[in-house]
């Protein structure tokens, strides 16, 4: 696991990057694009999360991928290449299998991108960007995104406290355990309601959403940010030109058809690859720089 220096850039760069890659990997089903997006998302998630990221990918993402690839041909029978017939009489086609695999890859890629998004775009960054434009919505959004991890933490705290007086779900017979579990949940719900009101009150008393209020963190849009932002906008432009020319999509039904690969399409693939790999490139470059400085000392 290495230090992620992409997240030290200005929030607007992080946000633009993630919006671009997530939207692109959702809409561009061309195999080359999907491959590029998947490889980049996978590499970046490994870079940010290290071993736990790998474990998550193999334990949850791989079975999900297989499941989703299998489920599509069971319900979708379109396509000209009939491989065999189901017992009911409906055909299984080559196109529907390929479409299933492709859709599964797309799904996994987007999930990976979102897991990277969550660790890079912290809630203070999000509120820095949108706190003035849409104060209420951005607060709700950042609170919602924090819901699950926060509740899990709090449940652990409550459960540990209950353990001290012998009332945890791991203590007693089965009926008692169930009772204890419900008790913990009720404490949890009480805390959640109270906490929500307290947060709202405290935000209000500190003047959240009023004009002239500053953010918790202060970011500066310096030269480094300008360069990266310019490069990113240029790459996004090239990819969008490719999309307008129909280079980025694939037709699955009734037969698979993709646009012929030309020099221009290779150029688009390369720019998409660089766009997706921006954080990885920045991190590697930063690591090399660090090593260099270290060796000089």
């Amino acid at each position, binding site marked *: 696991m290495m230090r992620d220096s992409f997240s030290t850039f200005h929030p607007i760069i992080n946000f633009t990057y993630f919006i671009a890659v997530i939207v692109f990997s959702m809409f561009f089903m061309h195999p080359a694009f999907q491959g590029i997006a998947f490889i980049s998302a996978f590499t970046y998630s490994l870079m940010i999360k290290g071993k736990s990221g790998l474990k998550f990918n193999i334990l949850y993402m791989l079975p999900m991928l297989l499941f989703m690839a299998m489920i599509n041909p069971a319900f979708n029978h379109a396509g000209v290449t*009939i491989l065999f017939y189901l017992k009911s009489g409906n*055909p299984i086609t080559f196109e529907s299998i390929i479409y299933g695999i492709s859709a599964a890859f797309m799904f996994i890629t987007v999930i990976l991108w979102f897991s990277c998004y969550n660790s890079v775009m912290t809630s203070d960054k999000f509120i820095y960007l949108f706190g003035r434009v849409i104060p209420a919505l951005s607060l709700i959004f950042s609170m919602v995104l924090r819901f699950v991890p926060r509740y899990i933490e709090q449940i652990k705290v409550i459960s540990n406290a209950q353990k001290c007086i012998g009332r945890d779900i791991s203590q007693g017979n089965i009926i008692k355990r169930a009772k204890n579990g419900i008790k913990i949940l009720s404490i949890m719900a009480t805390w959640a309601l109270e906490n929500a009101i307290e947060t709202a009150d405290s935000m209000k008393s500190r003047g959240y959403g009023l004009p002239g209020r500053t953010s918790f963190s202060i970011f500066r849009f310096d030269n480094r940010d300008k360069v990266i932002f310019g490069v990113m906008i240029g790459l996004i432009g090239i990819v969008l030109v490719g999309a307008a020319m129909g280079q980025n999509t694939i037709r699955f*039904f*009734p037969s698979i058809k993709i646009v012929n690969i030309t020099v221009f399409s290779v150029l688009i693939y390369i720019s998409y690859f660089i766009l997706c790999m921006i954080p990885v490139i920045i991190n590697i470059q930063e690591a090399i720089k660090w090593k260099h400085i270290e060796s000089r000392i």
Partner: protein
Amino acid sequence: MRKKKIQLTLFIMAILTIAFFGGGNKEVVPLSMEQMEKDAGIVEDTSPSNNDISIEANEKNEDIRDIENSEKEESKLQGDLVKESEEESLGLEIDSEKKYIDKKDNDKKADKQKEIKREQTNKIETKEENAKKGKNEKAKIIAQDKKNIDEKDKYLTDPVPEGKPEPVEWQDITINKENTLTATLSVTCKTILNNMHLFNMDKLEVLPEDGIIYATKKVVFYEGESVFDVLLREMQENKIHMEFVMTPIYNSNYIAGINNIYEFDCGELSGWMYRVNGWFPNYGASRYQLQDGDKIEWIYTCDLGRDIGGDWAVTGGEE
């Protein structure tokens, strides 16, 4: 603030109006008489009363087609619908029937030369009449539907007209494999050729040039089998793609697509319908038990059956 809001509302309304009036050409051209006749070519032994009805329907369709043709001509003269003319030429290219082309050409010339003014007035009148008729018919159908609500069977099928076979439930039928009978089967989608402007262009490669997916052929079936059973077996044997879905509420299989031409591929009112001995049943294909010598036709519609003369089955009950 209020001014801005009003401006915004006006803007949205303007966009909606533009979308409503300029939302592309959705008119459906029905099958011509020749095309229909060619469909029904071989079998002559359908009941006479039935034939009369179908001919009447054909004539009606013909009238509507003429009117539509003249409309098209006019719009061409005005020169504001370039797209349509393109599609027409496309349709002509694909259409293999010379007769049809000739007729169309004749129609056009005639329309051009003959008194356009009179046509116009006529058209307006007929349009109004049609609108009135349509309204009346709609009201009638709704009233009848309400009246029939108690008469429907448990699978929501309206009463079948006299002399037509009643639906049977496929669960109750035992197929007698020893007794083989014959029927004729055909699968066509000619109405798409008239409505290329509605067709999903991705599917162009699976559309046969003459609109015939499975030419009329004698097929063997076992006693007790349904229209659906025959279609499924023949499509599998001939390696023609076909997808269906069981619909429990109508207790029948619904044919979603044949030869990769699916429902909704030619406008939102399109899909597959079936006709046995010249009649479009108002119940599903799995519930129609075949008799010896039956003539089965699977026909693609772009307009809920109105373009192929089978709208009764749809307005009376769901396919």
